[in-house]
């Protein structure tokens, strides 16, 4: 193994990375860019998390203790924008950059220079967005949904908000194009589509979703821009426009967007559960069909975010039925994961723990999602803390847990060393306890009548808010364990090429750490068939 690694290194010394900052600024290497994306998203995760802690600290007790309502609204808005566009999405793109070429036996991404650009746009976008905190009128405070007319009351931050979203969209679209082109053109010989690993499949579908909806989103915010500065009235009732139209356009983007954040997570856990169950993924093909089905349905359910805007009855019924149907393919995914575990030979290393946590807690988020689909009941749940509980269950122990699982799973392949397993398990258990303490009480708050996005609340909501705030602080501190794991990532024992006992896939046929260039020549058929045995 080690000789193989040495051979590869020697053979490619002349392609080695540049030294210093130039390596990162000008890199076109998918592994470097993957690392950049992952580090960037981790930083954003902590920035967005700090904002969440401002929110939870203020909500710990009734009465205003720390911030004013206008700053509170800035925090909820920025927390969401940063977590969605700065943390979760780039983290999955980072995993895609690192792993997709290695999983399909390609030497790099298809469009390496564009790859560099799509990453380096992001720090600029979030620099613009972050700078609004220091402007007259403060940061955007209209919620990440940016509904007009409220969003048009934003101060100097307004154009910066719009342009930063344009940039994020640009970055996402370029990343998505790159992923599609790579997957469709650069697979190893004989790796036909249905033989691709699930992570590659879910990313292929996600990339199509991105290309379909990011331009729509860009269009919507551009119309906001022209309404504000160029006298148009797309969304202004006084000029003959329709404020609700923005919501339709926004959620036509927004609903596929939530699947953009969860489909790659499905892919990650679909890689990990078979490895630690020592059994092939159950129903690989039906998993592919289920993911495609979810992607298709995501385009025809958007108005379930809008059951209270006053749609015609037929519209409400259509969107209710369409939304309920999503439970079927999502259920198929969960059943297939459970069937993968069934009669396996399971061990519980950190990636598996996070994946199991994902299956349990994402399913709870799925249940509340099904409840939200029931339109008459949604009228009660809508814009209450029940919704906050729901989407945090699918995003935190959903997307974020899957990201953590993926990070632990592939970390030895990236660094060449085993991470600190004890710290990893501690990270998992602390995260799981605190994430539930934070978000489970929010179900009760919402049902009892607490609206979301309020800086202060009536005293009857005090107990559960206090619990949620304690949980949030605990969850935030638990993530420092992950930082510790990363800082000590190279102090463990050396990882083998296969790292785990029974992993499947081409990425485990290259040395650990993966050399700067892998698969300069495509793997022969035998290699990748063995890799999947």
């Amino acid at each position: 193994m080690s000789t193989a690694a040495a051979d590869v290194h020697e053979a490619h010394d002349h392609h080695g990375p540049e030294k210093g900052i130039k390596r990162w600024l000008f890199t076109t290497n998918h592994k470097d860019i993957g690392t950049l994306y992952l580090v960037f998203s981790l930083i954003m995760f902590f920035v967005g998390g700090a904002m969440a802690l401002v929110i939870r600290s203020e909500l710990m007790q009734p009465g205003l203790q720390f911030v004013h309502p206008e700053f509170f609204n800035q925090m909820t808005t920025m927390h969401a924008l940063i977590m969605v566009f700065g943390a979760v999405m780039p983290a999955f793109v980072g995993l895609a950059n690192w792993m997709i070429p290695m999983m399909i036996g390609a030497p790099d991404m298809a469009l390496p220079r564009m790859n560099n650009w799509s990453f380096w746009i992001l720090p600029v976008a979030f620099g613009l967005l972050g700078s609004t905190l220091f402007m007259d009128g403060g940061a955007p405070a209209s919620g990440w949904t940016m509904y007009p007319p409220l969003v048009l009351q934003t101060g100097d931050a307004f154009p910066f908000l719009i342009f930063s979203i344009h940039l994020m969209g640009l970055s996402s679209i370029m990343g998505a194009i790159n992923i599609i082109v790579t997957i469709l053109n650069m697979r190893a010989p004989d790796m036909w589509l249905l033989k691709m690993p699930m992570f590659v499949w879910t990313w292929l579908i996600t990339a199509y979703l991105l290309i379909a909806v990011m331009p729509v989103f860009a269009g919507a915010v551009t119309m906001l821009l022209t309404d504000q500065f160029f006298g148009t009235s797309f969304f202004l009732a006084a000029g003959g426009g329709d404020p609700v139209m923005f919501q339709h356009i926004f959620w036509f983007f927004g609903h596929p967007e939530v699947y953009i954040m969860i489909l790659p997570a499905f892919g990650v856990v679909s890689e990990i559960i078979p490895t630690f169950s020592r059994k092939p993924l159950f129903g690989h093909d039906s998993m592919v069909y289920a993911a495609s089905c979810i992607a298709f349905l995501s385009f025809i359910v958007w108005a379930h975010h809008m059951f209270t805007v006053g749609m015609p009855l037929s519209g409400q019924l259509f969107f209710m039925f369409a939304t309920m149907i999503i439970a079927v393919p999502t259920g198929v995914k969960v059943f297939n994961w459970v069937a993968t575990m069934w009669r396996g030979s399971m061990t519980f290393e950190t990636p598996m723990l996070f994946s199991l946590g994902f299956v349990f807690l994402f399913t709870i988020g799925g249940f509340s999602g099904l409840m939200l689909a029931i339109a008459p009941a949604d009228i009660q749940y809508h814009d209450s803390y029940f919704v906050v509980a729901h989407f945090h269950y699918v995003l935190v122990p959903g997307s974020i847990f899957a990201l953590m699982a993926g990070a632990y799973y592939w970390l030895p392949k990236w660094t060449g060393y085993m991470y600190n397993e004890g710290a990893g398990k501690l990270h998992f258990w602390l995260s799981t306890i605190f994430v539930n303490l934070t978000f489970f009480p929010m179900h009760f708050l919402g049902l009892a009548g607490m609206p979301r996005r309020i800086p202060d609340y009536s005293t009857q909501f005090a107990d559960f808010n206090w619990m949620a705030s304690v949980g949030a602080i605990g969850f935030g501190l638990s993530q420092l364990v992950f930082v510790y794991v990363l800082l000590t990532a190279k102090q463990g024992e050396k990882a083998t090429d296969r790292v785990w006992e029974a992993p499947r896939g081409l990425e485990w046929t290259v040395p650990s750490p993966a050399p700067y260039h892998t698969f300069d020549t495509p793997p022969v058929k035998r290699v990748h068939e063995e890799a999947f045995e």
Partner: protein
Amino acid sequence: MNNLMIRKSLLSLLGLVWASAASADRALNMPRGITELSAETYGLHMMVFWWCVAIGIVVFGVMIISLIKHRKSVGHEAATFSHSTTAEVVWTIIPCIILLIMAVPAAETMIRLEDSRNPDVSIVVTGYQWKWHYRYQDEDVEFYSSLAMPSVKARFKGSGVDPFSVENFLLEVDQPLVVPKGKKVRLLLTSNDVIHAWWVPELAIKKDAIPGIINEAWFTALETGTFRGQCAELCGKDHGYMPIVVEVVEEDAFQAWVSSRKDGGTRLAQVEN
């Protein structure tokens, strides 16, 4: 305050929060409400909830059995099966049937919710940043409804007022909406500035108030009493400070209230605001 926090932490540590919250009959679940439709909505909510519990028991049950029995540390050898078309068909069809069972009553309730024909009382509700305005159609009564003074005094940072000492903190208004019991009340909702949403959980009504659009909602309250709610759509900095209070009174008390408001009521309301 410190004492309170210690008490609370003890409660939550011991798991007593559950018991106390349940016995206080609040905070844990959606209210059953005071209209036929709110009770139906509650019924739908509970039906879907119990289906989720049942599905959860099956799925998590199988998973937990697997986690206990099929682990390497107890010497379980991995099987090699990797697909079963029968299983896939079964666990596609069964959820479809369950969804159908849920969808039918949900659609029926939805249809009733949207039937706002033949109201007895119509009220135009207008959202403002950050208060509500009510105008009784066919009666010469209109007024603003804003956060009540005791809450206003306590709401600011550093106010020095303990929120626990204010009755109905943030959920009290200067002038509540008064409606008759047993009559069909139709709300016509709109807004003067940004989008608001009028939400009273006990009435199972949440409807957006949107500038340039008039939305309809209706209810027939079957009980008298005072029912509280809040604006549910983010509408700017004081979004958390525009509560809704609805007083349901007997028919004759309502008529007396209307006539008392007709002479000077309007003027009074304008002076107060």
